[in-house]
């Protein structure tokens, strides 16, 4: 499939998913309380920014996955004091 065919096929689905995100954010804002300081809101904003602005390399999904991931520390085996038995 070429890019036009994919867009034709997926436009309405993309539109619907964006609306779902927008509506969910509206729902949060309408509700009582304040989540402005919640780190998850910043993560969501960063992820939306990746979708909106990152057009140089088609790996948005991978970048967003990493955004929502805990860091990996390559020295974890030492910190856990674990060594292989084999």
């Amino acid at each position, binding site marked *: *499939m070429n890019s036009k065919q994919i867009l034709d*096929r997926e436009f309405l689905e993309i539109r619907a998913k964006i609306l779902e995100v927008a509506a969910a954010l509206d729902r949060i804002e309408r509700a009582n309380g304040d989540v402005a300081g919640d780190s998850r809101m910043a993560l969501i904003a960063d992820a939306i920014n990746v979708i909106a602005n990152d057009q140089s390399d088609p*790996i948005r*999904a*991978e970048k967003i*996955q*990493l955004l*929502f*991931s*805990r*860091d*990996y*520390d*390559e020295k*974890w*085996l030492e910190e*856990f*004091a*674990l*060594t*292989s*038995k*084999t």
Partner: protein
Amino acid sequence: MYYIDPHLHMVSRTTDDYETLSKMGCVAISEPAFWAGFDRGSADSFRDYFRQLTEVEPKRAAQYGIQHFTWLCINAKEAENVELSREVLKLIPEFLDCPNVLGIGEIGLNKNTRNEAIVFQEHLELAIAHDQQVLIHTPHLEDKYQGTRMILDMLGEHSVDRSRVLVDHVEEHTVEHVLKAGYWAGMTLYPVTKCTPSRAVDIIERHGSDRICVNSAGDWGPSKPTAVPDLILEMRRRGHDESLIRKIVYDNPRTFFSQSRNFHLSDPATRGVAK
């Protein structure tokens, strides 16, 4: 199209699901041992579970012309209890010669803790000692990337044959690490917490079709045991060749499983149902 679902927890599913799977072309299932939704209280509970996996499910599946294979372990979630895990590890060898056992799995990490890592390594040592294949669970959501890297580190420290290890539940940010290291990768088609059929096809298009399998991981949670046919449909809608689709859903799992001495797949064209 005939297909194999390499990761499906049928103990949690109804017999109706076996019937539906059979109608949709499923000819074989492999069922890794996993968490029951609650922590079991004793090793005896696992002995009964292993009997269910090796005696009961193969018969239930056979009624619908489906071959049932399994993997044994104590799962990552209950592995936090190291004492119980070691009791369960002692039980496993007596089941390894059961005719449907393919290896050790699904071992792995859940919250990436020290205890989970200890039990993971002890499972690996058991697999090596008994020349077993290994099927590995990677954590979900924010723990997946870190946990997958930790698992690859531990595998790298053991003398395992990488072609006999499948690292499951890979997604966009972990698949390349697994494939580049020489292991098989599994993609789980599962609502919300794992991969959709569309994203799985994207990953195949980006990373190729070698050493990649797809599964439904249907279980007691919100899941869809017929998710593999959803992927078949998505690949067809994108115009992929039938031969490529067949490679992903049939040839690849058959190739991986064929390295187990207990894997004998009947010719789907001549399969019957148990009476």
